[in-house]
């Protein structure tokens, strides 16, 4: 029982730390690409701490304040459903399909909070966020099904176990892995698909009215979200590791490649983004699905 409580406290902190490390590296890496020196490596920590320690915070109502809290609760919940370093915590009580729905709690919380901020920029941001979610959910579902069908189970820890020594799903389902990689871009709202919080058009979208500790909470939530998405990708296709270091290395490798494409591509318009997701990734994912079905 004590071990359980210990895990219940350590796991989210670990997830937050990993997510935060990715944010740090990203800022530094982006600066380096733009031939700039870039901020201190631990700049995100300063940002978050400064936001949390803001003396004066505004709120547009209970739902406005509840939004970030539900977002964080949802993210913490989804962290528990991803097996880390060999210990599969809650995968027993909820499988892959449940995980896809649990990840939706986060976006629901943010959407509710932003909606209550009574600002049209926020509403436009949310409508784009949900449309984008609708877009990338189709290929995501297809690759999840193809992985589940290949290993005849939707239990994430079983999938990880099946990919144990070396033969990852990446080799057996290369096409799905590629689609998974592209979909993680959309899910994270990374640069080509950051139409949601495009500063030039909709003044950081849903976060337009968020400041101070609310914005701090949202950045914490972004860290969790970063961790969950990449950990899911690693578990599905790179056979998540038995101990934490290999897990981190794999996640870092994935994130590193993502950062490479990140800064180079121009931003998608929202309906082009959905058209893109429903054209190429879906077709490729369907091909790999048919391959799995036939096999």
């Amino acid at each position, binding site marked *: 029982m004590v071990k359980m409580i210990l895990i219940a406290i350590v796991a989210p902190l670990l997830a937050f730390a990993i997510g935060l490390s990715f944010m740090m590296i990203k800022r530094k890496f982006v600066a380096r690409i733009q031939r700039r020196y870039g901020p201190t490596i631990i700049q995100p920590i300063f940002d978050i701490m400064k936001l949390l320690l803001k003396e004066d915070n505004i*709120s547009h109502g209970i739902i406005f304040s509840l939004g970030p809290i539900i977002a964080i609760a949802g993210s913490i919940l989804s962290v528990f459903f991803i097996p880390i370093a060999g210990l599969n915590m809650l995968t027993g*009580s909820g499988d*892959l*399909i449940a995980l896809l729905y649990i990840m939706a*709690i986060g976006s629901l919380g943010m959407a*509710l909070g932003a*909606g209550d901020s009574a600002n049209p920029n926020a509403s436009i941001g949310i409508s784009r966020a949900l449309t984008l979610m609708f877009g990338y959910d189709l290929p995501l579902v297809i690759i999840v099904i193809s992985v589940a*069908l290949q290993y005849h*189970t939707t*239990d994430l820890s079983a999938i990880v176990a099946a990919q144990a020594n070396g033969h990852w799903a990446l080799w057996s389902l290369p096409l799905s892995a590629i689609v998974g990689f592209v979909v993680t871009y959309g899910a994270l709202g990374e640069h080509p698909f950051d139409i949601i919080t495009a500063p030039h058009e909709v003044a950081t979208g849903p976060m337009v009215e968020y400041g101070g500790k609310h914005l701090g909470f949202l950045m914490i939530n972004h860290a969790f979200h970063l961790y969950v998405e990449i950990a899911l990708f690693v578990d599905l296709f790179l056979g998540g590791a038995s101990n934490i270091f290999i897990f981190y290395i794999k996640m870092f490798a994935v994130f590193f490649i993502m950062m490479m494409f990140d800064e180079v591509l121009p931003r998608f318009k929202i309906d082009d983004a959905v058209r893109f997701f429903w054209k190429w990734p879906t077709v490729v994912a369907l091909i790999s699905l048919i391959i799995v079905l036939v096999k």
Partner: protein
Amino acid sequence: MNILLEIMLATPFIGGLLAFIGGKVHRWVRFAVAVTFSFLTLIEAFVYYNVTIKGVVWGSLFGSKLILQTNPISWLFLFIVTAMSFLIVIFSIGDMEEDRIKLDSYYMQLLFVEGAMIGIVLAGDLITFFMFWEIMSWTSYFLIIYGGKKSVAAGYKYIIMSIIGAYSMFIAIAMLYVKAHSLVYADVATTLAHSSATFVVWTVVLLGIGFFVKAAIMPLHTWLPDAHSEAPSPVSPLLSGVLIKMGAYGLFIVLYGFLSVQLAGNIMPSVFSTPILLYIIQWLAALSIVLATFLAIMQEDAKRLLAYSSISQIGYVVLGIATGTSLGVAGGLFHALNHAIFKGLLFLAVGAVIYRTGTRNLSDLGGLVKKMPYTFTALLLGIIALAGVPPLNGFVSKWMIYEALLQKKEVFLLIMAFIGSTGAFLYVYRLIHSIFLGQLPKKYENVKDVPILMQVPIWVLAVSTIIFGIFPGLAMNVIVKGMKLFGFKPIAYTLFGFPQGTAMGALKVINISAVLAIAFVAAWVLFLILSKSRKVSQYDNYAAGQVVTPELKYNYSFGFYMSFGRVIKSILKLGIERIYNYWVDAAKIFGDYYMRRVYTGNLETYNSYIVIVVTIAAAAILLGGKLW
């Protein structure tokens, strides 16, 4: 014990008549009678909690006995009917404004529809089933056109389509009667067992058409959006929460009462290990899920949005029922119960908003969260349940349907079901955002929350979404016990979910909700430690420095998903409605031009007709009857 069945069937009808007469006496008499009788039926329903009564003969017609029976599956639907009608009677007492003459007939029709639905659910043979099916059609017709004006046209379309559906069932019933002279379910099953494949297919298809019209599956759904949005606000939850479930119940009885999966299996070829007929039904249901969701996303009117969402959700129920495996069918039936709960909740909440603001148009409303907090929380629970997000009840039944589809490897159906659920997320958020979040328009400054009488049913439904969400076992033991009767293998379940789960994965809903609650409390405490946040008015908003004033409609809610609409522009254009209208007009023109020309009105032509008849007769005589 089983006399009570007939009493239960009779109470709503007697209640209706007494309410009508009571209404003449005084307003409160009518309300009292309506409430007591619907409560009485609810209590009687509980008497049959898990009792199976084979058959109580209450009459016979043309040689076939008329039977009432009950088993856990029909008890499930009986519970939906009685519970929802009781809540709707209470809601309509608060909601319907006083119009003496029409209100009496309103309550009478309400209780008649409840009685007819109980009749359908308790029916043990096809004639009783069909009789109460038609009574349900025309009594609900009167409920729809209660609003007058636009709802009359909607009601007219509804009644014509249900009559066509009913008559297609009629032909099937007649064909069955002719073959076996007895329409009791058991005999029908035996007749189908050893009759030719084409006969079975024809009967099931014809019965299916009747159920698909009522359950509004895609090609036959055109009546639902008009009927549900034009009906008065307490009637729409009855229509979309309960009435379309009768279609699902009928389908269940036909597919598994008469035509068990093995029989279907050896009659017709099977694809993906499901008989072709079930597979086609599944595809129709999946199509109606996807297309109805697309249409729901683009709606501007709250009730039409919910109506289209009913079409897509009933698509899930039919998809579940038509999977054939015990997990899928259980998922479908459980989703029928869940859908009745959260769709009823959503319609009642929207009805409360309409009661207070008077408008259904999503772009006029906004910011009501400050004025109507209770209705907001109820609607929030409803939309979370509809979108299928874990802690609430929509999730468990959808999860079961997905697991069943995954086990049967019907991946394309699973993909379409998933698109429907993500799409549900979009239009569901659209509903709560346009009504409750955003800027509060000037004219709704002094809107209060709805009176207690209307809040009680809303709260009962809201709480039951949580109860069935966290403890799915409550409903599951009724469903699993009932399905054993229809020859399905029982599923391993506990009060909190499916621990050892199905072949694919396990689900313990209690753990999910517990961890979510703990995480929420932790985040809330962290939030409170930090410095307090001061409330700010809705006009103190970032607008690049420009001062926001009330006249400025500073709200983005018209055409919320316009960008998504551009993506599915081509899909939205194809509508089945145009084809129906084309055929109706063609029939009208044909009828008008050719048929009426026969009765020209002058005597000479009439006499010439007589001469024609005589010549035909003479020709028959000369040819000596060798004509045929």
